[in-house]
């Protein structure tokens, strides 16, 4: 019974709109595009290509629900790939490289969180600054070069599955994204921390009045966002096979777009993990569909921009009607 109500909860947390949008866009491309678009392998590819943005956007969803923003995640991802490559290059185990990546992500998040809560500077500015700082550190550490690393099992997170692996449906990196999404869903809706994040984002004054340790929660938002950027960095490294200080430029904007398409509000207090995942998939579907029917890159970009604005407008209309 508990499981049933859990599923109903997921369904009720406002992800129906983004899901319908995703389905509509996919079917549209399946209709106008080549017949190969309507196939399992295309779906697998779309989901696989969404994993990095998806994982980053999970962290971004928490931050945005809490009324903040984190612009530094793309730079954290780049710094993480460099860090993994160096660790492997020095002969340490893959597991240690993986841990190092997570630690780097957490430290970056802690840096953001500490500045935001101690200096009382708005998150937009702090993370805009740290976007440059982290990117600079990545470039400095790598001497502005790609950092080579030996091939290990770390490179298989987002690999295309071969014939006898096909029962797994998706590579492990995708399953990691799904597991993290479920974990964060539970964190947001079934713990005190989650309640405090929603309260902080809906009305900070009320949160203070009710004794919510506002600074601690705010700091934790960015630590979590850093953690997810670290995981995304592992996936990014997995795909690149090298440490690249210029990787993931603009990833933060894609992650924010995924959150917003998924029903998140930049005013805080609103957002849905399921919606965010659908938002990330929607963007990849458009990109992949456009290239399949041979549309130029610039057309894709214009389309993507239009979709973001349309999605948010629809969401606002839905809200206005409810009132």
């Amino acid at each position: 019974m508990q499981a049933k109500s859990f599923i109903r909860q997921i369904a009720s947390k406002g992800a129906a709109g983004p899901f319908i949008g995703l389905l509509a866009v996919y079917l549209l491309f399946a209709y106008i595009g080549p017949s190969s678009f309507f196939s399992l392998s295309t779906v697998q590819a779309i989901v696989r290509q969404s994993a990095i943005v998806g994982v980053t956007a999970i962290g971004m969803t928490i931050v945005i629900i809490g009324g903040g923003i984190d612009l530094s995640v793309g730079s954290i991802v780049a710094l993480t790939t460099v860090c993994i490559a160096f660790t492997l290059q020095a002969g340490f185990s893959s597991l240690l490289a993986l841990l190092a990546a997570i630690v780097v992500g957490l430290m970056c998040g802690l840096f953001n969180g500490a500045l935001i809560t101690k200096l009382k500077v708005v998150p937009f500015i702090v993370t805009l600054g740290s976007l440059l700082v982290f990117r600079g550190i990545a470039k400095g550490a790598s001497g502005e070069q790609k950092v080579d690393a030996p091939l290990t099992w770390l490179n298989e997170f987002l690999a295309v599955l071969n014939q006898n692996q096909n029962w797994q449906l998706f590579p492990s990196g995708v399953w990691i994204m799904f597991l993290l999404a479920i974990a964060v869903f539970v964190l947001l809706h079934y713990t005190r921390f989650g309640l405090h994040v929603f309260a902080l984002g809906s009305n900070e004054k009320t949160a203070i009045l009710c004794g919510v340790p506002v600074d601690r929660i705010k700091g934790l938002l960015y630590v979590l966002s850093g953690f997810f950027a670290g995981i995304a960095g592992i996936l990014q490294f997995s795909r690149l096979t090298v440490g690249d200080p210029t990787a993931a430029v603009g990833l933060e904007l894609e992650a924010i777009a995924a959150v917003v398409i998924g029903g998140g509000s930049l005013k805080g207090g609103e957002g849905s993990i399921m919606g965010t995942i659908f938002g990330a998939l929607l963007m990849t579907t458009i990109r992949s569909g456009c290239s399949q029917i041979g549309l130029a890159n610039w057309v894709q970009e214009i389309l993507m921009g239009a979709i973001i604005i349309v999605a948010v407008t629809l969401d606002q209309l839905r809200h206005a009607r409810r009132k």
Partner: protein
Amino acid sequence: MISDKLNSNSKNTSTNRLEARDIDVTFGATTALAKANFSVKSGEIHALLGENGAGKSTLMKVLAGSLIPDRGEMFLDGAPYQPHTPLDGRLAGVAMIYQELSMAPHLTVAENICLGLEPIRSLLLDRHEMEKRSRSALDKLGHGNMDLHRPADELSISEQQLVEIARSIALGCKVLILDEPTSSLTRSDVDKLFALLNRLKSQDYAIIYISHFIEEVREVADRFTVLRDGCVAVSGDPKTVSTDEIVSLMLGSKTAAAYPRSDRNIGNTILTVSNLASASKVESASFTLRRGEVLGIAGLVGSGRTELVRAIFGLDAVLKGEIKIGSYSGQATPHTRWNQSIGYLSENRKDEGVAVSMDIASNLILPSAKSLTNRGLLLPAAVDAAMKTWIEKLNVKCSGPRAKMLSLSGGNQQKVALARLLFRDVDVLILDEPTRGIDVKTKNQIYALIDNLAKEGKAIIMISSYLPELLGVCDRIAVMNRGKLGESRPTSNLTEQQLMVETVSAN
């Protein structure tokens, strides 16, 4: 009797600059104004008096154009006047100067005065003309020597007020409405303001002056009007009536409401405040609070009564003095206060009291989520079960514990905010305007609830602008007046008249 005498000498309706006839305004089921008549002549200062909620601000909003009345007509210099926005009003010549001044803090004095009507010459801002206009407006106010280049955030409150008035003069307004202009001024600034108003009067400006301070009204106004329950109760010459008479006119004769009061056992002291001064408004306050009693704090809006309890609850910085809870007297945040079993109900329900975009359950359990957490998880089933009891106990009208706060009426939102304190089961309840803006039935429920809590041995501080309510509910009452808290006295020795005189006297 008094009213007959007064009404007769105000029948003179010649040369009305601004006149409002038979104004009706209703908000939902409540009538804010019923057939209200009001007028002001040029060269006259007309004071508008009334209790909180008597309809003063509604009437002023109608005159200034920020509220469109349901019925009634208005005339400006004899011509029909139908403003739809405050800008319409200003352009027609009626300007409202609010209690909360509206300065752009980064702009200079001259820029603030010309804001919205900046002189432009060949696409560029004509700074020379701007300064000329500002100078001439300030000259009319007798402050022609003011530095036009100072940024507004460097000005004192009274200087800001001056700039705000100059802005209306520069626009050519002939009717000025001042809402509680002296509430945050020192006595010497009040004198300066009065000199300025008299100067404007001699230049044929019409001034509407809203105030709670009756002595000041007697000093500066040529005519006064008392609003009561949305109707004009009386108007006349303030010099011919005493302060006490005006207070009686404001209060009228009310039907006594029934306030439940069971036998309360006063216990030991739980909260001691001595010589408290805060970073905002509170200058000196001392009192003690004991278990099983309700302490009332009376005072005008802006007197510092809310700031007093905010300082106690750790929301405002304490500058001086001591707050002692049991034996603890150190630093406090709302977080530590909840842990010390103190809860605060904010007067500002919409902005602070509740998070309207969250659901009822989240709002209610916010300070007490810890007690509902089971092995780190906050399970909805446990939350909903706890909520159901409270929704039923307080009779909150809603579709369920997961309904959004937005879907509730004000009264029901207030019940949820109050239930937050009850659910946490705090020992000290600080209730700031607990019955503001809610219907009579809910009010009576809240009175009964407060009485019950006192009987159980909780200690309660209640702030209210509505004196009969304080007299009905509290055991002791202290009056806050311009940042200073008077001594608390047993309710049995107090009358509404006496309290009203104390809250409005310029000490």
